[in-house]
Structure formats: structure tokens, C-alpha cells
């Protein structure tokens, strides 16, 4: 029915089947929208957050998706600036994912701040000392860059592209993409870093506080490195998921392995510094504030197992797997490493947001446990559903995968 909207030369399932699939994410989306409406109407008292945990699932989710969305800027940087041409086969997906991750994070933030209508104060009364100010500026600018990068993909839709003006417009945007990729890289690096910096400067919170270089605590650099060490493989995972769901080959395995190699290399660099950082923090910094390494952990939710899983199972292991050609060239091993890598970075973001503030710094204070409630889950899942919907539409109607026709020739 809608076949003349499909990209040139590809096959897609029938419209009823597609609509049936779209029902699932839509239900979740509506559930989340209901929660969001409640939150806007009654205030965020309806969530599981409290005075002890001002930051919770939402901020963890934001930080994690932003890290995983780093595939967009880093792949763009490699493709347009370092001219690694092979990446053109996956760059569209990386851009779309980046856009979804960032816009999703911004949607969550509108709920998360207590006074959404004052959100613009961040630009109007900026505090130059606050890392969050840097985040606010960079995130908005970078989201704009992502929109600019996304537009030509939309304009290449078969019917839209027939309109001469849109065709030329898209072409010009493409020609200048290196410029946008450059700006995007700069902005994204900075705010990935500032997100890390946000925690690293909290000198009242020994779990997160780090000394650093100039105004930037070490976490600034660690967050950038961990994001580029995981973003590219997240793109690979999503690509593979779409392949599995549609039963088509979309991107050559070589390209995926290359993305794995890139992420693996960055992950190795990250792990090197992360281990040094953790060591210096445990034996150097903590004693100066009278705390010990063991005091940083508690029970299961805040147990040491998290740290070791993050560093070893989801850090060193995938790093080694990804840089070893024979492992990387085996699809199931590559995907396993990619999953571990993404879990690792998510654990990192979780402990920095939740564990950091769960630790009782005053000796007579208690550990508190934070459990997100349905309203936080619903809204976070809403963002995932939004991503699934947009991605499905893009896959169906936009020429996202340049290799699709060639790879699926019978």
C-alpha cells in the first residue's frame, strides 16, 4: 500500500504487519505519557525520588543513553574528519540513534527538573562555575547539530527527494557535513566530559570526587573515553537487532567488526586510565577524607560486585575481546563483547549517580536504598518506545542502509 514510499529497490513487510508491530511500542509510549502527565500535574513527588536521592533512575538513564549515543559523534568524526570511508555504511544509523538518545534524554530532563518552565534560566542566568551550565549549553547545541545531520537523511526519502529544492538542500547539507561533524565532535566531547565533571567536582561526595587537570576532574576525561569506547558498539548492536527482526542483512560484517575494533581500542585506553584512577582514588584520596575503600560499598545494591563487574567482566574482558581480531571476527563473540561493554558503561553511570549519594558521608548517617517507582520506569521506557517507533519508521521509509540492496540480492 505504502510501497512507493519505500527506499529504492528494497523489500518491506506489508502495512498491516508493520502496524501490528507498532502497536507494542505505542502502548508503552502511552503508558509513559500517562505517567508524564501525572508528573507534570502533581509534581515529581509522585516518583520514587526523595530528599536523599535527588538524582535517581532518570539521571542514570540520561547519562547511559547519552554515553551510548556517542556512536553518532564519534563515528561522524571518524567518517568525515579522519575519512574512514567504510563507515558511510553505518553512519546514518549512528546519527539517528544519536538523535534519539539525545532528544530522549532532553525529554526526560523536562520532567526531571522541578520547574520545567524555568528551564531557559540555564541560558539566561548561567553560572560559569557550574559543570551543569556547560552541559546545558553543549547538549542543546549538540542536539541541534544532530537535527541538522538527521534532516538530509529524511530529505532523501524517495518522494521527498523528487522535489528539486529539497534534493538540492539535502545535497548541500551533505557537502557541509564535515563541518557539522566537526562542530558535533567538539560539542559532544565537551558535554560528555562535563557530565562526568558534574560528579567529579562534588567535593562533599567522596565516591565521585576526583582531583584533576585545571578545572576538569579526571571523571571529565573518563566519561569521554568510556562513551567513545561503548557508543560505536551500541550502534552495532542496534543494527544487528534490526537485522534479526527483519531477517535482512543491512550492514556488511566487516563494517561492524571495524566499529568493534574502534570501540575496543578506545575501551582499552579508557580501562587503562580507569584502573589507575580507581587505584589512586582508593589508596590516595579516600584516606585523606578519613574513609576507606570498604566504606564505599554496602549490601547488594551498592556492593563491591558492581565495581568488579564494571571493571573486569564489563571492562577488561570486552576490551580484550574487541581488540583481538580472531574474536572480533566471530559475530556472536563480537556481540557478546558489545553487550558487556554497554552494560559496563551503564553500571558506571548508575554508581556515579546513585551510589555516590547513597553513601553516608556523615559518620552518624545511614545508607539509604533507592528504588525507582512505576512513574520513573514508565517515563524511561517511554523514551525507549519513542526510539523504537522512530527507528521503525526510519527503517521502513528512509534509505538508512546504503548496502541493503546489494547485501540482500538473491
Amino acid at each position, binding site marked *: 500500500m505504502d510501497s512507493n514510499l519505500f527506499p529504492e529497490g528494497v523489500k518491506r513487510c506489508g502495512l498491516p504487519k508493520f502496524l501490528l508491530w507498532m502497536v507494542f511500542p505505542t502502548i508503552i509510549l502511552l503508558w509513559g505519557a500517562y505517567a508524564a502527565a501525572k508528573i507534570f500535574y*502533581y*509534581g*515529581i*513527588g509522585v516518583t520514587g*525520588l*526523595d*530528599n*536523599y*536521592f*535527588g*538524582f535517581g533512575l532518570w539521571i542514570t538513564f540520561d547519562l547511559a543513553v547519552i554515553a551510548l549515543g556517542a556512536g553518532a559523534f564519534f563515528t561522524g568524526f571518524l567518517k568525515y574528519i579522519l575519512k574512514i570511508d567504510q563507515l558511510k555504511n553505518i553512519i546514518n544509523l549512528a546519527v539517528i540513534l544519536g538523535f534519539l538518545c539525545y532528544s530522549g534524554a532532553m525529554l526526560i530532563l523536562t520532567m*526531571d*527538573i*522541578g*520547574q520545567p518552565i*524555568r*528551564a531557559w*534560566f*540555564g541560558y*539566561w*542566568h*548561567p*553560572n560559569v*562555575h*557550574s*559543570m*551543569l*551550565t556547560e552541559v*546545558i549549553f553543549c547538549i542543546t547545541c549538540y542536539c541541534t547539530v544532530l537535527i541538522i545531520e538527521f534532516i538530509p537523511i529524511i530529505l532523501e526519502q524517495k518522494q521527498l527527494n523528487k522535489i528539486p529544492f529539497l534534493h538540492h538542500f539535502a545535497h548541500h547539507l551533505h557537502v557541509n557535513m564535515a563541518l557539522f561533524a566537526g562542530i558535533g565532535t567538539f560539542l559532544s566531547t565537551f558535554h560528555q566530559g562535563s557530565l562526568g565533571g*558534574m560528579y567529579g*567536582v*562534588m*567535593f*562533599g*561526595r*567522596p565516591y565521585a570526587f576526583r582531583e584533576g587537570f585545571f578545572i576538569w576532574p579526571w571523571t571529565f576525561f573518563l566519561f569521554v573515553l568510556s562513551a567513545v569506547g561503548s557508543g560505536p558498539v551500541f550502534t552495532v548492536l542496534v543494527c544487528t537487532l534490526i537485522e534479526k527482526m527483519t531477517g535482512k542483512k543491512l550492514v556488511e560484517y566487516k563494517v561492524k567488526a571495524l566499529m568493534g575494533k574502534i570501540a575496543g581500542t578506545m575501551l582499552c585506553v579508557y580501562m587503562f586510565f580507569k584502573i589507575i584512577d580507581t587505584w589512586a582514588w582508593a589508596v590516595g584520596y579516600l*584516606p*585523606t*577524607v*578519613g*574513609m*576507606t575503600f570498604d*566504606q564505599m560499598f554496602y549490601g547488594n545494591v551498592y556492593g563491591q560486585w558492581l565495581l568488579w563487574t564494571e571493571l573486569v567482566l564489563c571492562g577488561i574482558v570486552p576490551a580484550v575481546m574487541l581488540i583481538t581480531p580472531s574474536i572480533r571476527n566471530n559475530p556472536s563473540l563480537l556481540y557478546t563483547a558489545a553487550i558487556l561493554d554497554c552494560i559496563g558503561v551503564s553500571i558506571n553511570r548508575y554508581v556515579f549517580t546513585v551510589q*555516590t*549519594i547513597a553513601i553516608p*558521608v*556523615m*559518620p*552518624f*548517617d545511614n545508607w*539509604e536504598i533507592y528504588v525507582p517507582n512505576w512513574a520513573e520506569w514508565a517515563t524511561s521506557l517511554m523514551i525507549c518506545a519513542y526510539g523504537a517507533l522512530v527507528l521503525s519508521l526510519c527503517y521502513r521509509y528512509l534509505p538508512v542502509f546504503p548496502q541493503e540492496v546489494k547485501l540482500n540480492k538473491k
Partner: protein
Amino acid sequence: MQQMEFDTKWTMVVDVDKCTGCGACMVSCQAENNIAPMEEGSNKLKTLTWMLVYELNNGKEFPNREVAYLPRPCMQCGHPACVPVCPVVATTKDEEGGIVSQIYPRCIGCRYCMAACPYHARYFGWLDPVWPGGMDKALSPSTSTRPRGVVEKCNFCHTRLMDARARARSEGLDPNKLPDGWYQPACLEACPTGAISFGDVKNPEHKVHELVKNPNAFRILESIGMDPQVYYISRRDWVREQSDNHVAEDKH
């Protein structure tokens, strides 16, 4: 961030050994600062308790058990963790006297300051304040009420400082050199045991000037270096030992 020094440094000194944990300071704080009662107060982590009384104990079993009560307002840190992180300059420490201010109409409710403050001195308005049964008619006229969605905290009853200064002006005195006792926060006034003292630590005529030199005076978390303007006094070792984190081999 550079630390600012002021000619006046409003300081609170709490004698922990005198505090009976009655909670009068908490109640008077709620009343003075127009803090709405919570409809559902069972979740203590969602209530607004600018002044919170902690219960400490010596870790021993009965009959050797001892308890102490430690009231905790905002410490008005000399080197506050909450100020540099605020993206919109809604909280600052730049007024004579060194009270960390909180500008409610400016705050966007990001709660970064709450994450930064290890004393848990900041509170967020999770839900709309509700004033049951005509209680709104008894609100204090000198303090603003806050909408939901902003962070609030103790400000040493700053409006009382304004009043004291006004009185000084009308009596021809220097409003920046208030006599001892002219400016008293609500918690101090309500305390039945006289555990709380308050004044300008830099003014030798004020009682707190001497009190902070007491060998039993201490501040919470000195090692983190936030330089609080709230001091405590206790003659009991086990109380002082709980003021800061110390690794086992490095006792007082």
C-alpha cells in the same frame, strides 16, 4: 571556588550535651518559615525539615548505652559544595555575614545542590504545599512560601536579620555591627534548654566568639574542608568522635 571572607560571620553553636532531642527547634523552624505540613508524612525522606535532629548513640548495649541529640540546620559552609554547582546562581554566598542564600524564584529544581551537599541540608518541594483548615491565615508574613519544584533550606532565619538591622537603624546603631542577641533564629528562641547560641564569631562582644574556642567544640566533617559556620560542643568523647570520618588507626 575561592572562599569569601566577610567582616561578620554569623555562627551557630549547639551544645549537644544540653540538647534533649525535644524537637522544639524543628517545630519552630517549620512555623517561622512557612513550611507546609505534609499530607502524608510517613516518608521522612520527602518532608521538609530544614532543621533536623539526629539521634546519636555510643554503640553500646543497655545499661551502658548513651544517646545524644544533634540538631542539624544548614551549615552555611564557608566553602559550600552547593554553591558552585548551581547552574543558575540560585544559591549564593555573597552577603555580609556569610549566610548561604537560596533564591526560590530563580531555582529550576535540578537538585544538583542536593546531590552535592553531604549534610543533607537541602530539601526539595516534591508536591504542592497544602495549608489545611485555614492554616494559611496563620502564615508568617515575613517569609515567602515556596511553590513545589524548588530546593529550599535553612537560612538562619534571614528575615530576622533584616528585622534586627532595621531595628538597629531606627535606634541609630550600625546595622552591620549588631549587639549580641539582637538577631536570633527561631530555633534558638524555641529551645527550652538553651542548647543553641548564635552570633557573630568575629565580634569579641558576642558569646559565640569565645564558645568556638572551647576545647570541646567541633564541626562536622572538618576533613572534607567545607568550613561550616555551625559548631557543636560536647564533653563526651564518643560524640566528638562521630563528627568526622577517621580511619581506624587515626583516632583523635
